[in-house]
Each structure stands twice: as C-alpha cells, then as structure tokens.
C-alpha cells in the first residue's frame, strides 16, 4: 500500500477557497444581523416601556421657556401613549404612529435641568443616559448648550433632538450625526427678513448692530449683515455686548449720533428685553435720521420675550419659528390640545420640542427599531407635513429642517396678553434653503 500525494490543481484550490470563505463569512453575517438588533446603548427590547429624556432649563434666565418646553414634552408623551385628543398626531403626514406608544412600548420620561450652562447640560444628559437609560433626549434654550449636547450624543451613541437653538453652527460647523434640529437658524432669519426689510424700509439704510457676545450672536450678526448689505444697506458699526449686561445704556447712547437709522438687536431672552426697552426709552423710535424714521429690528423673536418687553415691541420686525395664531390644521390642533391642557397658548419653544418628540417616535416606527443608526437613517431626508410649518424636509446632509419661516412684527393692536406678534409674511422654505457646505462641518460616523 502506498500513499500517493497528488498535487493540488487550480480547480481544487478555487473550490477550497470558496468553501473556506463561506464558512468564515457565515458567522459574520449572522452576528452582524444580531448586532443590528441588539448592540446599541439602552436597548429597550426586553422592556415594556421606553424612556425619553427631557433636558430643559428649569432654573436660570430661561426657566420660563424651559417650563413651556416641558409642558410640550409631557403633552407629546400623552399623545404618543394614546391619551388626550392626539394633537398633531391627527394632522401629521406621513404618520406611522398609532397611539400605543412607540413600537408597542409605553413611553416614559425623565427630566433634567440644563441651567442654560453647557457643562450642567452635559452632566444632566449623561446622567439620563447612564442612570435612567434614555433612548433619546431633547430640549434646551441656547445654542451653546445644544452644541455641547450634540457632541455628547455623538460620543455616547444616543440621539439628541435639539430644542430651541438658532445658531448657524448647530447644523453648520458643529453638526453631528446624532443631533437633529427642527428649529430654524440665523441664516434663515436673514433670508426671510431681507425682502420684508427692503419693502418696508427701502435699500438706502445705515445699520448699527448690538450683538450678544457668543456663538449665536456672532452667527446672527453675520447672517443679518450679509442680508442687509445685500440689499444695499451700509453697516455703520457692529458692537459686541456681554451676555447678561443688564443695563445697555452705555451701548445704546453711541447709536444716537452714529448716523445710523436702523438698530439691529442681536440679543435673545433677557438681554433682548432689556436692550429693546432701553433703546425705546432713549427715544430711538421717535428719531428721524437721514430723513427717515429710525427703526429697530429684532431678528429672533419669541412670544415669551415679547411679553417681557411689553409695549416696546409694537411695530418692531423680526422672525419666529412658529406662532400660535397660525391657522393651518397642525397648528390649530396643537394650540387646542395645549390650551385645553394648560389654559394658555404654546410658545415657539414648546412647538419645536413637541414636534421633535413626535418626529423621533415616528422615525422609530418607520425604522422598526430603536437602533439609533436605523432611526437616524429614517430621519435623514424625511419629508413631512401637518406640523405647523408647511411641507418640511429634514435634510440628511446637515440634519437641519427646511420649512416656511415667519416674518412677524410686534402687534400694534393686541387683543390679549398672548396676542403679541402679528405674522406679516410666511417666507416659503425654498427662499431660505441654502447649500449645506457653506457653513462647513462634518456629521461624523453612524456607528460610534
């Protein structure tokens, strides 16, 4: 008996190679599928409920806005779980939610306090992710805070749906794959305001900027100046003011004899209330400069701020993301639900937070999983309607929503304490849409 060792020919080598490849690949295919379903942070598969985190300013200067955000989140959870009148679930299109929670799991929530401080917001969000096991969190009233939380979302692999943030940077140079913004931004404010300013104030104007000295103020100043200079206006001066300055008189006095005939207040919240009040007290609105009536512009308005500024806002132009007086079906449904629940209409902050919660929940239903990678893909380039701003696109390239923008002015004949803003124009989404590359930034990877 002899053993004859036969040399391996080319055909046998190929067969052996293919067989080995198949054997080696099989576990990979199986395991990848398994990872897709289970290997993500705070997977609620084995739980009867799913937990959302609502991180809003409960203390500090924006506490009232935070309280309104929280009311909206609570209402959204109620509607998701099938309680109440359903609000925007009756108008949202397309809709995959059916009022039995999300993917059959009851929605629960925990809350945190951002204090409108980046470090406090991050600490609070981290606690919600690690201790409370939230699958998604949302909220906030400041761009600095939103940007800090987006970075955390990317690090932790948990989706963050921004609250109120208006800086171009949020979905520009600081955009993140795990962060999504429904609220509009400073560029859009400028693009929407431009035509109205041209119509109301002409093309021969001299503008003076007072700007809050942080990321949101800088980007708004840049966007509005680009717009007004594009109209032919001259920018006389851009003065940065410290955040929370309180008394702005020393910054307003130089405006009087600067030759400017328009004052643009790139301030928000308490700063806006104080600077506008004081500008009006200095008689700026009664002045005639260069043969024209002196005008004040507040590019970003909110109803809560308008309440703080009182009568001083009458006739002053600005933009807002949404206003409760809108008459589309989505807005009416939301105002009705919110008004019946709390006795007063919602703010724009409440609206954006409510919508963000429904959009995330709907994306989970469409993706058929809570896996953030699939949910992110479901949100990217998603088109929807019936949520108060007309047909809207959640652009995949930068996670910014593109929708109609409202140009408003302080109501001259308010009929109630809430009837403070008059919508003068609804600027279509196409007019405020821009190339995602103009602000730079990278979203980062899906898998972290």
């Amino acid at each position, binding site marked *: 008996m002899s053993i004859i060792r036969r040399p391996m020919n080319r055909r046998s080598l190929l067969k052996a190679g293919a067989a080995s490849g198949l054997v080696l690949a099989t576990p990979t295919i199986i395991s990848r599928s398994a990872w897709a379903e289970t290997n993500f942070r705070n997977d609620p598969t084995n739980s009867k409920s799913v937990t959302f985190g609502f991180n809003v300013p409960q*203390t*500090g*200067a*924006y*506490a*009232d806005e935070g309280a309104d955000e929280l009311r909206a989140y609570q209402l959204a959870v109620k509607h998701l779980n099938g309680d109440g009148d359903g609000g925007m679930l009756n108008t949202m299109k397309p809709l995959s939610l059916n009022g039995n929670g999300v993917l059959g799991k009851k929605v629960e929530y925990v809350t945190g306090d951002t204090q409108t401080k980046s470090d406090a917001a991050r600490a609070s969000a981290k606690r919600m992710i690690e201790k409370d096991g939230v699958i998604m969190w949302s909220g906030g009233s400041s761009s600095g805070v939103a940007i800090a939380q987006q970075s955390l979302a990317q690090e932790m692999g948990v989706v963050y749906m921004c609250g109120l943030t208006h800086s171009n940077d949020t979905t520009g140079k600081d955009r993140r794959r795990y962060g999504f913004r429904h609220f509009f931004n400073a560029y859009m404010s400028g693009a929407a305001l431009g035509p109205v300013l041209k119509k109301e104030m002409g093309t021969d104007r001299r503008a003076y900027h007072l700007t809050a000295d942080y990321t949101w103020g800088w980007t708004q100043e840049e966007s509005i100046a680009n717009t007004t200079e594009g109209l032919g206006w001259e920018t006389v*001066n851009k*003065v940065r003011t*410290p955040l*929370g300055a*309180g*008394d702005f*008189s*020393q*910054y307003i*006095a*130089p405006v*009087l*004899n600067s030759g400017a005939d328009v004052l643009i207040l790139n301030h928000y919240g*308490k700063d806006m*209330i*104080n600077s506008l*009040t*004081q500008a009006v*007290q*200095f*008689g700026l609105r*009664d*002045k005639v400069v260069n043969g024209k009536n002196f005008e004040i512009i507040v590019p970003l308005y909110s109803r*809560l701020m308008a*309440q*703080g*500024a*009182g*009568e*001083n806002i009458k006739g002053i132009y600005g933009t807002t993301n949404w206003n*409760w*007086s809108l008459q589309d079906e989505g807005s*009416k449904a939301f*105002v*009705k*639900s*919110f*008004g*019946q629940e709390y*006795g007063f*209409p919602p703010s724009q902050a409440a609206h954006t937070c409510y919508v963000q919660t429904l959009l995330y929940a709907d994306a989970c239903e469409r993706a058929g999983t809570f896996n953030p990678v699939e949910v992110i893909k479901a949100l990217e380039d998603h088109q929807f309607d019936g949520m108060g701003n007309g047909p809207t696109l959640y652009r995949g390239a930068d996670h910014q929503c593109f929708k109609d923008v409202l140009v408003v002015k302080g109501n001259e004949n308010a009929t109630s304490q809430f009837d403070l803003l008059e919508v003068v124009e609804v600027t279509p989404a196409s007019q405020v849409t821009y190339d995602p590359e103009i602000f730079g930034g990278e979203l980062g990877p899906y898998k972290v």
Partner: protein
Amino acid sequence: MDAIVLQILNGLDKGGAYALIALGLTLIFGTLGVVNFAHGALFMLGAFCAVAFNHVISLEKVVVDPTKTTAWGTPLEIRVPYLESWLGDTGATMLNYSVPLSILLAIPVMLLVGYIMERGLIRHFYKRPHAEQILVTFGLAIVLQEIVKTYFGANPIPQAAPDVVRGAMDLGVVLGFDPGTVVYPQWRIVYLFFSLSVIGAVFAFLQFTTFGMVVRAGMADRETVGFLGINIERRFTLVFAIAAVVAGLAGVMYTPILPPDYHMGMDFLVLSFVVVVVGGMGSLPGAVSAGFLLGILQSFASMNEVKTILPGIDQIIIYLVAVIILLVRPRGLMGRKGVMET
C-alpha cells in the same frame, strides 16, 4: 462732546443705583460690622414691591363672554381692572403712576424685612468671622431669589414709567448743543435726582438728628457709646432696616429702566461691593463718591473709541480701577484707619 455728555449722564445714572446700594452696605458694615451679601437681594425685593403693587392695583374683574371662544375652544374672558371700573379716571391715573406709588408699599415692607432679617438671622453672626457672615447672607440671598422666582417666574416683568416721564428729553438745547444731539430718557433723569435726594436724606438724618449722632458715634467707637448707657444694639437694628429701605427704594425706582427679574440683585451686588471697597470700608461719603465714579468710568469704557484701542475694557474697567486704587490707597478713597485691617 455730545457723546461724552451722554456717557457722563449714563454713568451718573448707573452710579446712582450703585451708590444707593453701596450706601446701605456701608451703613450695615460700619454699624454692625457685618458683610451683607444679601443686600443685592434687598434691591431685588424692592423692585418686586413695585411689581406686587402693580399686580394688586391691576387686579381684574373677569367676565366670560359665552358668545366668543379662544383659539383652544374655551369661552373668551374679558378682563377689566377693578380700580378702573370703580374709580374711573382716578383709577386709570393710579395705574399710570404705579411705580412711584409703590414706594408707599415698599417703605413699610422693606423696614419689616430689614428688621426681621437683623433680629432673626444677622444678629447671631455679629461675632462670627466675616467668611461665615458672607456664607450665611449669600445663602439668604439665594433663598429670597428662589421665593421670588416661585411667585413671579423667571422672566423679567416690565414696569412702565408714568406717561409724563416715559419718553426721551432733548437736553442738547438746555446744555447748549445742537438740538437732537443729547437725547436722554426722562425717567433716568428722574432716577438720578431721586437717588441724590435719598442720599441727601440719609446724610441729613445721620448728621442732624440725635439718632443719627448716636449712630455715628457708635460707628466710631461702639464700646464708649455703650458705656454711656445707650442701647446701641436697638439703634443698629433700625439702621439695618433703614439700609434695607434705601436698597428697596433704589430697586423700586429702577424697575422702568430694567424690567425686574429674580436675579437682578446679584448683578448689582458684586459691583456694589467693589464700590464699597474702592470708597473705603465703612466710609459713607466714600461709598457714594465711588459709586458715581465707577458708574462714569464704566460708561466711558463702553465707548466705541475706547474699545477700539482697548478691546474688552468695558468688562474689566471697574475691577482694574479697584486694583489700582487698592494698590495706591489700601484703605480705599476715604477708608477709615483700622477697618478690616486686623
């Protein structure tokens, strides 16, 4: 030149508020030896006396109109202030003068608050180190802030000046400049004169009354006054209450300038302490002079011409001046020998 005049006016105006707060702080420190970090909160409480007064006199009669509904489907409520429906034009005038009228509420309220604070808390810390006094009064300030926030919310609440002084005034004509070059808010001018009047009244009280004489004697040498059989403690309690009233009045009249919110006291507190230190711990004229001086310097530092040469100087000017003055004159501008030197 007109820009300089405007900034001087701004500085005097701001300085008026600093001086009033610093005056109270110095009175308390000079008499009781207590470093009161709750003094900013007293300024804030005064401002909220104006808000509360306005809320009370604006109480409305609510009539439901069943024929109309709100946007959320509930019957529309029509609101009319009781005062206006009861007193007609007189009621409307009272609503218009709400801020100055609220002084009538603020004086007794602040006297009471000051008395309770001193008897209930501060007196237990007379012989404790300054660090402990600072901690406890700072804690008290936070408690007062949170109470106000609970009742009034976190948003600023605007208070209007009376119609007659609501607009701006052309001072250019009065001061010899071209018309329209020096335009200044009328209420701020009212505030400046108000603060000067209160400062004058406090100095007159201390200078020309027996009570004031005893207090001044107590500030100079507490033990000797005690040896003379005078109950200095009781008088100092009243001094604390008076200091609370001064801070409260400063807050009441500031509400049309800065819509009050629960945090406004903290914004003024730190600057007022710098004013006290620069003026000289325990020196009343020092506190007033430093208040106006730092107010004016802060305004000038915010001018565009200055900021072009020294960017950011408006943020640090007060602290920079404080450092320089303390290096040159460690006791401050008018500080007394021996105060805070042991």
